[in-house]
């Protein structure tokens, strides 16, 4: 059994108390231990999905002798590189259940973790700019109504009311309406990783950074542990949660995946005064934008058209994205862009994730979130932990690897039409 670690709680009172001591009394947010010889469960990858999985293994299933191994720094993968859009207006029932569970967990996550993840349910509009998109989103709105997910199809004038800086009469693609989810929004991406890591550490779990898994050890088709740059570590159960590196880890375990890895980019502008308090996605012209609390315009770009692990992305995608956004938001034409970066996203053919058992006994994989898994972190962790603990979870049941074998896809190409 692992010992829980005593950590001081964050509160307004603690801030006041620390202020009197010149803020010298804050302790480290999580422990940095050396690995033990053996754990009940090892999670590879300390991104949001890996950390959330560990957290719910402990919180919901009492499995606390857990290590989370991270080759870099925690949250340094896609979790710390994304544009933080949270929404649950997907089309298929299995997706709606997963993303809505996740969105609802986000609402109280700051309280649950005692860590301010800055969830901001400011609302998300997905613009319809062709007749095809109008029909697609009307269909989604009806599907969402049946699924109990609150969304509505809104008129162009309502779009303008929600987002005054938008240009409805673009030269190429006028705004014909939009799919509006008032309860969608954004959160602070790093804080989601940090909050889960801190809570895992408090439960006695070991978050081990700079620990790269280089091999998966098996005996008689069953996992026995992993090899790392910090030595071999044994485990009863293994969860692979490494996003763009899933194919690489699957290769170590001896199976292949229906996944391709590509770089996806984002960029932010110089900070400006508040001008936009919703998230707007424009799938036809391929761009989306929101404003961060610091005032930067956060812009999502396109994914590369070929497999790569560069964490950089091709330059022409920025040009395309910015061109499209200037058409939609003319006032940004003089903004300077400050930073650009990329993450390696794991794409499946049906644009839905994989949460599954694998051909190796007691090895589980959670991947394929592609361009849109930040919004799913709490729900995915919840379901995947249940799958690892009990061998079955109603939340993940449809997302098994066997769906490809059976031709039972969860087609979200409309909902995931733009990288988000």
């Amino acid at each position: 059994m692992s010992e829980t670690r005593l950590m001081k709680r964050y509160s307004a009172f603690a801030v006041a108390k620390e202020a009197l001591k010149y803020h010298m009394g804050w302790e480290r947010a999580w422990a940095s231990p050396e690995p033990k010889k053996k754990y009940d469960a090892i999670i590879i990858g300390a991104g949001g999905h890996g950390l959330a999985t560990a957290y719910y293994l402990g919180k919901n299933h009492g499995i606390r002798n857990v290590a989370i191994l991270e080759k870099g720094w925690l949250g340094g993968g896609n979790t710390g590189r994304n544009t933080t859009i949270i929404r649950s207006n997907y089309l298929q029932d299995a997706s709606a259940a997963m993303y809505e569970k996740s969105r609802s967990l986000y609402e109280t996550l700051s309280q649950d973790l005692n860590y301010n993840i800055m969830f901001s349910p400011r609302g998300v509009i997905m613009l319809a700019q062709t007749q095809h998109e109008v029909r697609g989103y009307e269909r989604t709105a009806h599907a969402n109504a049946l699924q109990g997910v609150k969304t509505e199809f809104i008129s162009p004038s309502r779009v303008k009311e929600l987002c005054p800086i938008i240009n409805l009469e673009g030269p190429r693609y006028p705004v014909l309406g939009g799919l509006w989810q008032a309860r969608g929004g954004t959160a602070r991406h790093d804080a989601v990783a940090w909050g889960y890591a801190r809570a895992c550490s408090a439960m006695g779990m070991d978050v081990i950074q700079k620990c790269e898994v280089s091999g998966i050890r098996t005996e008689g088709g069953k996992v026995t542990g992993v090899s790392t740059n910090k030595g071999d570590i044994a485990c009863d159960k293994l969860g692979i949660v490494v996003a763009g590196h899933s194919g690489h880890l699957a290769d170590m375990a001896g199976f292949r995946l229906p996944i391709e890895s590509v770089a996806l980019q984002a960029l932010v502008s110089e900070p400006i005064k508040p001008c936009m308090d919703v998230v707007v996605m424009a799938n036809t012209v391929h761009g989306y934008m929101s404003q961060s609390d610091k005032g930067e315009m956060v812009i999502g770009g396109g994914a590369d058209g070929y497999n790569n692990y560069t964490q950089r992305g091709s330059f022409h995608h920025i040009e395309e994205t910015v061109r499209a956004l200037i058409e939609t938001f003319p006032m940004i034409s003089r903004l300077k862009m400050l930073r650009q970066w990329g993450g390696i996203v794991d794409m499946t053919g049906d644009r839905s994730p994989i949460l599954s058992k694998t051909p190796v006994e007691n090895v589980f994989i959670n991947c394929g979130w592609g361009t849109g898994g930040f919004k799913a972190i709490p729900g995915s962790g919840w379901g995947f932990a249940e799958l690892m603990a009990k061998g079955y979870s109603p939340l993940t049941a449809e997302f098994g690897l066997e769906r490809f074998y059976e031709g039972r896809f969860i087609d979200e190409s409309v909902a995931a039409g733009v990288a988000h």
Partner: protein
Amino acid sequence: MLILECPYCGVKGEETEFTGGGEAHLKRFGPGASDDDFHGYLFKRENPKGVHLERWRHTNGCGKWFHAARNTVTLEVYGTYPAQTTEPPKDIKDKISARVPGWSWREFS
């Protein structure tokens, strides 16, 4: 930025001149094949971190399909070769071996 050379027209261009066509040298399985083979052909991908063999099309040029041997981490291109082949030519394999000793990709090495 990725720079490729079309093996047909000999034109060197940056990536917006071409379109990626995914994994190369797939063995096609159709009606009558086993479920495993069909599933493997349709969905299972190498997706390697390192040496990769791919199909590309010279879309904004001669329009022809060709093959490229490329590194997915460094974007180094080891060479391009015509589409009418089932494996990379020896000189390209040698070039890869010189740069990445001990490489392998499906049945090739």
